[in-house]
């Protein structure tokens, strides 16, 4: 049985708790990295990470990109979207097609 985790700063992710997701607050970069790895090794199939945090976790997130589980998905935090998820989409398209076609 898999679970869903949400990772981010307190204000951005607190509301997910009411939905029954497992919420993890992290403040520092080191803490975020450690938590992400810990979650990935546990039974979390989907880990939502705020875009604000993901900027510091790029190489960590890239590591899990090629595995089927877990899926690490960026969500906008409380300050709104930074366009990082869109950039990731573009780079994936570019990787697959060999040119940016969108």
């Amino acid at each position, binding site marked *: *049985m898999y679970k869903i985790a949400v990772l981010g700063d307190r204000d951005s992710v607190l509301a997910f708790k009411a*939905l029954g997701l497992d919420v993890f607050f992290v403040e520092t970069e080191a803490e975020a990295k450690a938590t992400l790895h810990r979650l990935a090794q546990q039974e979390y199939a989907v880990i*939502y990470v705020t875009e604000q945090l993901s900027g510091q976790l790029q190489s960590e997130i890239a590591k899990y990109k090629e595995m089927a589980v877990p*899926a690490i998905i960026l969500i*906008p935090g409380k300050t709104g*979207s930074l366009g990082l998820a869109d950039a990731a*989409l573009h780079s994936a398209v570019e990787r*697959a097609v060999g040119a940016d076609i969108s």
Partner: protein
Amino acid sequence: MAGKTVNPTRMELTRLKGRLRTATRGHKLLKDKRDEMMKQFLDIVRRNRALRAKVEEGLQRANAAFTVASAVMGPEMLEQALLYPKAGVELDVGYRNIMSVNVPVYQFRTTGSQDLYPYGFAQTSGELDDALDAMNQVFHDMLELAEVEKSMQLLAQEIEKTRRRVNALEYVVIPQTQQNIRYISMKLDENERGNTTRLMKVKDMVLQDAHDYKR
């Protein structure tokens, strides 16, 4: 293989011809695979983009309501209200095969109570209810987004791999094998001609020896 010498023998020629056949067939198959994958991939990208826009918009609404709730209630109260959720979510992960890429399919089950609000209404503000409502609405899309985005990532990686293979076959393996085949058949033909000439020469010599014959 260019530059590396090949043995100009008939056996090698047969072997290379077989290889060329296999490579050509593999190239065609991989090209078809790549084209189909690309089609699926572009569909997924489109879906991903639409879903992402929806999710971001929904979350923004939820966050706005949540910020107001936080301002009205104060962070301590807010946390207290949300500390023990009534609902829980469990996730089943299945796999779907898209062109031999296994992509996850998520199926979620809510456990516990169906009641979204884990608090009494006396001490919380209405904005918090709105925030959770908005969250709940966007959650389905968020899960679908996770599925689509993961599929997209996995497919992108597989397409890249296939594309490299197709290119390697098309621009390296097949031309080189063709060149080697040409080289061997030239060499064999040349040997054949050399042999004929030698035989004619020998015949002349033998004839001359036998009865002073001169052409």
